[in-house]
């Protein structure tokens, strides 16, 4: 029964997305063109990759505010590396960025899992540290397009089997994540720890290890996203992606990941990311005043979650009505 609700919930989100798309399409016919859809998905790829990690974190009742900073730090490091040695292979650059992200994530994981600092605080503190380190490592400079070899910039613009690399990487991340969360023990244990940490301890699950793992994964994905970001925009700055964590959290929340832990589905965050992606893409296209954009975004997020909640209530009520007494 509850599985049906979850499905219906996603259906509701899907309907919402479709309605919105139709609305935008009526105002700007170039919205549902192949090119625009392609742009939209490409622009959403990084967000959706981060959403995977954030979902895992939120499932364990945590939150990670540091991902924007981790992304910036690893992007900057990768950019500095390729600007110093232009011969570096793009895979090595991805490796460096992801590695830095992993290290950041591990450090955070230790703080959350073993030192037992509340995630919101640990990540808030480390966000400052990582951001500061980004500025320090670049000495206040940016790494610009001309300092990056084409091979590096091609990470984001190139394509694999006709699919843009960013999209391909996102699909790969999603495939792996899906298998991980639904078909491996470790993946399921993430949900167990989030659903009830006390029983997890009694069933002999090493909660600390799971938590650590989750933040490490989040860090690794942020690192990967950092390289992709820098490659996509061909510029690395100290304040790259500042405040981006809120968008990622919003994507998860729209996708039905519960802040209370234990609940969250891959299909949900796909939809959440898509909804945000459409918002970011559509608002500039329907020519609303720049001053209204923020309000409209916020209102749509609020309406989406409220409708979702109301729909779920309706379904619950309906189920009750059918119950024989």
């Amino acid at each position, binding site marked *: 029964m509850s599985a049906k609700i979850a499905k219906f919930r996603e259906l509701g989100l899907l309907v919402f997305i479709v309605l919105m798309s139709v609305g935008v399409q009526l105002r700007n016919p170039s919205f549902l063109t192949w090119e625009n859809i392609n742009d939209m998905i490409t*622009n959403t790829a990084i967000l959706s990759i981060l959403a995977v990690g954030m979902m895992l974190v939120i499932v364990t009742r945590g939150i990670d505010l540091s991902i924007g900073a981790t992304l910036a730090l690893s992007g900057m490091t990768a950019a500095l590396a390729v600007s110093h040695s232009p011969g570096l292979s793009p895979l090595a650059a991805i490796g460096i960025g992801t590695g830095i992200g992993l290290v950041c994530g591990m450090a955070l994981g230790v703080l959350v899992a073993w030192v037992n600092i509340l995630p919101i605080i640990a990540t808030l503190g480390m966000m400052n540290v990582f951001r500061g380190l980004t*500025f320090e490592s670049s000495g*206040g400079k*940016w790494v*610009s*397009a*001309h300092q990056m070899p084409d091979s590096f910039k091609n990470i984001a613009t190139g394509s694999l089997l006709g699919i843009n690399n960013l999209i391909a990487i996102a699909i790969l991340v999603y495939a792996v994540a899906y298998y991980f969360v639904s078909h491996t023990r470790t993946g399921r244990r993430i949900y167990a720890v989030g659903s009830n940490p006390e029983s997890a301890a009694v069933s002999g699950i090493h909660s600390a290890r799971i938590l650590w793992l989750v933040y490490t994964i989040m860090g690794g994905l942020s690192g990967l996203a950092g390289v992709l970001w820098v490659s996509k925009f061909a510029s690395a700055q100290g304040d790259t992606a500042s405040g981006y964590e809120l968008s990622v959290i919003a994507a998860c929340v729209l996708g039905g990941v519960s802040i209370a832990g234990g609940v969250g589905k891959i299909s949900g965050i796909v939809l959440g990311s898509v909804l945000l992606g459409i918002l970011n893409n559509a608002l500039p296209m329907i020519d609303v005043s720049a001053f209204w954009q923020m309000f409209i975004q916020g209102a749509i997020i609020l309406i989406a979650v409220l409708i979702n909640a109301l729909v779920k209530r309706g379904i619950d009520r309906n189920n009750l009505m059918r119950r024989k007494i």
Partner: protein
Amino acid sequence: GKSGNSEGGASPSQAAVSESPSASASASSSESPSGNGGGAKKKFAIIFKNTGNPYGEKMMEGFKKAIEEVGGEAILKAPDQPTAEAQIQMIEELISQKVDSIAIAANDPDALQPALEKAMNAGIKVLSLDSAVNAASRLVHVNQADPERIGRTLIQGVSEMIGGEGEIAILSATSQATNQNTWIEWMKKELEDPKYSKIKLVKVAYGDDLRDKSVSETEALLKSYPNLKGIIAPTTVGIAAAGKVLTDKGLKGKVQLTGLGLPSEMAEYIESGVCQWMYLWNPIDVGYLSGYVADGLVKGTLTGKVGEKITAGTLGEKVVVQDGDGTQIMLGDPFKFDASNITEWKSVY
């Protein structure tokens, strides 16, 4: 990258300013010991908008150079976020340190007024540079370039690129940025000229100086206005993001791009021809000039009245002119970067 100290002196803006007698550095060295403070060095502070911005770093570098030339101590500050609140706090810190002068690139023209008035009441000489504060909060403003000239030049440039007809759009930073808004006003004024009757400004978009937003705004412009011929982006993040989009979409030559950008960020797109040329002034010179102006204010050789003159090291003599209610010192015209000179500048800033 290598820092071009000597190159910084030989500024690109000199090339644009027709007559610019190169100043003798000796003037400063003879004056500095005559300061009243005996052995203690005078303290000159500069506050930029935010940290980690190469444009600001270069500006502070130029400021520091000038202050060293006049024998003072330079204090360089910038908050981590570009907010007026953080700058107010920095001003308070500087007042406590009893600095002699504060030069500020403001995040808000009006919001710093109470803080800066307090500083001036404490005997600190206040000037603004790059982004002005209102006339009541400063003695003088060091203007990198005349906003009118910037606005008009950009329209002239884009008009030339697109052959005098077609749709154009502006990609700005935030809707709040006063600089950008003034320039945009002047662009619109310039467009009123009948010779641009065939040019239509279709939209002003705001990329908020965020990479991702600037990219989606640019993409939206291209799709909503399929006949778009040119984009003007008077902001460093915006113009680079637009350059990247045009490159990736293979629109080189179809959609023209110009605006204000950092040579280092734009080198790629100028060299490839996506952006034939763009403009900027030399931030090092802006800082350098401000250093001398600050020194003049502290020494009392300058009070900020119209008509006063100052000799600013290698930049030569500059004159204080009227600027609305207040006064300002102009650095010169914006400098044009194109394929011929971009290699030279891309490693400087």
